[in-house]
């Protein structure tokens, strides 16, 4: 674990507002993220244009009135679905690259180092790009395990909610609830519950990553516990990353829905494309902002005690082994005794 210096520790209890400002190297971080994303999207763009070009050669689609009738749109989706394997592959690759970028960015956005540089104007330190690559690789495996951990929790949540849905729907049906309640209200409430859980898990993922990089930790489950204890100290601020990401996703979905409904051509299409590019830039900026704020949050005074928590395993396996060994010992003792 790295040493902390009270001299350069953040003194303010504000984390999100100071993080809005672009620190040194922020543009480099964001630039790299946008560039990698663009490169990764390129094969998808080319494939999508090929598929849509084939569709556009068919009068069934090309001559249909706009907005495309439902069945025509469904047929188009069926053809576009051939892109799904590529999207899945790119999404997984992006997940890995995202962890590398996040690890490097979190390392670069160390509030102590930034304060020290601001005071000493020390420019002999490694560049943002180099830090991004070097520290990103150093923390990659740990951050990927964070993703796996959160994915497991998400899956368990989904299963739990699904079982709850069946049980609640059965009870509602037996109680004579209306179709609107069972088919609309209930799924809506369960979706909201799921989204609430995703807000929590998304925040948990971010703070766990920030703590992992800040302290150089390697035990993901232990670090997650530390992140949860951080939540106790900042009950509302801790949730901001999850909320912001949810709102961002919702905004993106709304933009895509509006795009599809309006079936734009010409200048309108250019407008939607520009809006989407603007969305991606905003999304990158928010990524930077949340990472920086997470580092500031963990470097704050209220988190001081947490930084001393050792990076030790929970000891579940050790406990199980102990229990198994204890049982074996007591069994052999009883057989040995005459």
């Amino acid at each position, binding site marked *: 674990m790295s040493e902390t210096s009270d001299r350069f520790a953040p003194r303010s209890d504000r984390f999100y507002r100071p993080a809005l400002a672009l620190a040194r190297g922020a543009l480099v971080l964001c630039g790299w993220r946008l560039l990698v994303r663009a490169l990764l999207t390129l094969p998808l763009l080319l494939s*999508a244009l090929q598929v849509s070009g084939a569709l556009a050669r068919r*009068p069934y689609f090309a001559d249909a009135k706009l907005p495309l009738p439902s069945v025509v749109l469904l047929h188009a989706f069926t053809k576009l679905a051939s892109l799904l394997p590529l999207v899945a592959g790119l999404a997984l690759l992006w997940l890995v690259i995202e962890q590398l970028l996040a690890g490097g960015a979190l390392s670069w956005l160390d509030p102590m180092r930034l304060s020290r540089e601001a005071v000493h104007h020390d420019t002999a330190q490694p560049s943002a790009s180099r830090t991004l690559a070097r520290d990103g690789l150093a923390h990659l495996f740990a951050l990927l395990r964070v993703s796996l951990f*959160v994915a497991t929790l998400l899956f368990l949540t989904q299963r739990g909610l699904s079982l709850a849905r069946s049980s609640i729907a059965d009870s509602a049906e037996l109680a004579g609830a209306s179709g609107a309640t069972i088919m609309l209200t209930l799924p809506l409430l369960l979706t909201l519950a799921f989204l609430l859980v995703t807000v929590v898990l998304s925040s948990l993922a971010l703070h766990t990553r920030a703590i992992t990089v800040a302290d150089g930790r390697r035990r993901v489950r232990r670090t997650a516990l530390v992140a949860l204890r951080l939540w106790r100290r900042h009950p509302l601020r801790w949730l901001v990353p999850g909320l912001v990401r*949810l709102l961002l996703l919702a905004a993106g979905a709304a933009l895509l829905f509006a795009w599809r409904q309006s079936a734009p051509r010409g200048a309108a299409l250019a407008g939607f494309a520009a809006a989407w590019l603007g969305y991606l830039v905003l999304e990158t900026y928010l990524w930077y902002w949340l990472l920086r704020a997470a580092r500031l949050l963990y470097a704050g005074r209220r988190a001081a005690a947490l930084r001393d928590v050792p990076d030790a395993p929970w000891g579940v396996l050790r406990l199980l082994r102990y229990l198994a060994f204890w049982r074996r010992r007591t069994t052999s003792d009883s057989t040995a005794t005459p």
Partner: protein
Amino acid sequence: MVSNEPEYMNDVIEEREPRTRPFEVRVLCSVVHVFSFVAVNSLFLSAALLLSCTSALAAPDLPALRRGVLPPTSLSYRIDVRLDPKSRALEGTVHLRWRAPASAPAPIRRVPLHLYLNAFAHEQTTWMRESHRGFDIGEFLGRYPDPWGYSEPTAVRQRTRAGTLRAAMTYPIQPDDGNPLDRTLVEVMLVEPLAPGATLELVIDFKARLPIPIARTGGLDDYFLVAQWFPKLGAYDTRRQRFVARQFHGPTEFFADFADYDVSIDVPSGFLVGATGARVTPRKKPAPGRRLLRYRQRAVHDFAWVTGSALVAERHAHRPAGGGPTVNVRYIVPRGTAHQVTRWRRAVEGGLDVLSRRVGPYPYATLTVVAPPWRGRNTSGMEYPTLITAIVGDDLLDSFLLADNKVPEEVAIHELGHQYFYGLLASNEQVDAFLDEGFNSYWHVRTSLAVFGREIGHVLGRSLSSLTRMQAGLSRRVGAIREAVLRSPSNLFYPGTAVAHIYFRPALTLRTAERRFGRAAIDRVFSTYYARYAFGHPKPEDFLAVAREVGGEALEAFLREAFTRRDVPDFRVDAAKTARWRSPRGRFVVGGTTHTIKTDDSRDKRDTGLDRRAREKDGYVWVEVTDPGAVGLAGSVRWRRFKPRGDKRDSSRAAAKRESRARRYYESVVRLIGPGWKHLPVSVELRFDDGARVHDLWDGRATWRAYRVVRAARLAEVRIDRAGDIALDVDRTNNGWRRVPERGLKRDLGLWSTAIGQWLMTALGAWL
């Protein structure tokens, strides 16, 4: 005699004999019908009609139907039934009277009775095994541990010639599949054989239990849709002189003879009742805490009723625009949804207007429309004589998804249409289900369009018509379709394809026929079919004979082919290309002069060897048409000339100027694939860059066709069936080709798909 062999095994599947009767009988029938035309409604007339050898009922008298006068029947039911809502139990007595046809070849010793509720007795009934509803029995049992229903006659007695009642034996039979656990059909051994022309009277005491709704019938607590609930006599086919009763199968429904019903229903106080027919005064007073209602209806083949303590009713009279008696329509909906009655009214009254005009009069004075509550949704979308169940009556219909959407109304129109095809024409649903479901599906699309116009079928601002839904439904199942529509029995289609064969294919066939032969022709066919066969249990050959007689041989030939082929048609553009025409490399002779061309440069600068027809000096486009032919039809490669449409160049001077300017010619080759049907021609259009359009009518008999054109313009587009006349074409996405993709669409969908991919990446990054 009742045969224990499965009825379909005795059928001649390929050809069905048209109805014929001996000459003397036909003369006698004609004389009787003349008298009947003169002296309508007389008792003597009724007796004369009954004595004449016809099918179940006499041929319909359309003017009488318009006045609501119904034909006489040879079967009657008088039923007393009591419902206990807590146990879902029914207890009752059926008094059944049936006059055997005088033409029966021998005394009848056994009669079948349907006990349809036994289909819901356990998991291994024939219905349960065959039902492919996506129904998860495990989940259902988790919610309702005891959902089962059943029906058992506790005593069956026959009135003898001496006037006494003697107990008759019953035993279950399974003539269709030999399933020993299926008890939906029983046989009654008569204590006295029934002579031809004699009357059978049975008194059947029965106990039944309604299932919690799995499909079509059942109820719970405060709502019951009571259908297929009483022991019902199997139908007697007078053409083949045998009973044609079948077990209750998953994909198919019910079949019975027309009868007169008189039903007394005993329910707890506070329960509203709706039923087939009109309410009349009960014969006795109800017990304390109970209500007793009595309903009567003549000339129907089933009786269903609905009851519940949380239902409300509204009554509206409507006189159909196409004639027929004023119909008292009663709308029964769950409490709190009475405001939705206006939706049902518009659908039902509009539907009655359209169908009475196009098909024939609705002859009954009553109609009950039920919107079940949500928990009774498995009883929705069903039809019974003079009683239909629409989609549910629920707040869900007021939500943003369904408030402006007309799908609920379309369901009501569909069920109303069944009153004609299921209720009045009453073909055998179990053997020829498509005569009801397929024909009705066609009519529900037409009726919905007529009533609602462009309002119907919109989801989030995008059109979604019934027709396109059917086409999409058919195309999804096309890989599994390998049987003809005209194949029976209807419960034995390949699993998962019954809906395609019974609903979609016939409906789309009729739609195609309408586009090809004209709506007027189809209307004539159906109005004649109805006029001739209402109350007559028609078969497919009866319909095809009417089509031939009224619509012409070509129409009948098309319908017959569509109903007997095992494939569904798909026309598609298999290949299309257009390239610069160049003089051929090598040595060739043109106009007595020998030319040798070696290099590509030489080819570019000359049009040596170009067919003079390509220059189009006569103003026609010349096309080389390759048609490989079919069995019995020789193939050929022919040059045909077409007068181009949409082309402004009429003067030869303009043509000459163009030719000297261009000096570039293009060779365009198109290959089309078709299903090779004998009676399905299709239009083909080739469009060129200079605006010229070439229209051809391909007879469709060969399985492919090729066009080759050399002219001074590139091929821009190929279209098969531009107007969409062939609704049966299972994949319309491959009916055309454009050389230049529509740029706006390409960019829009391409960029949008990419954005979707990026959004998914963002989501993954955000959550994990």
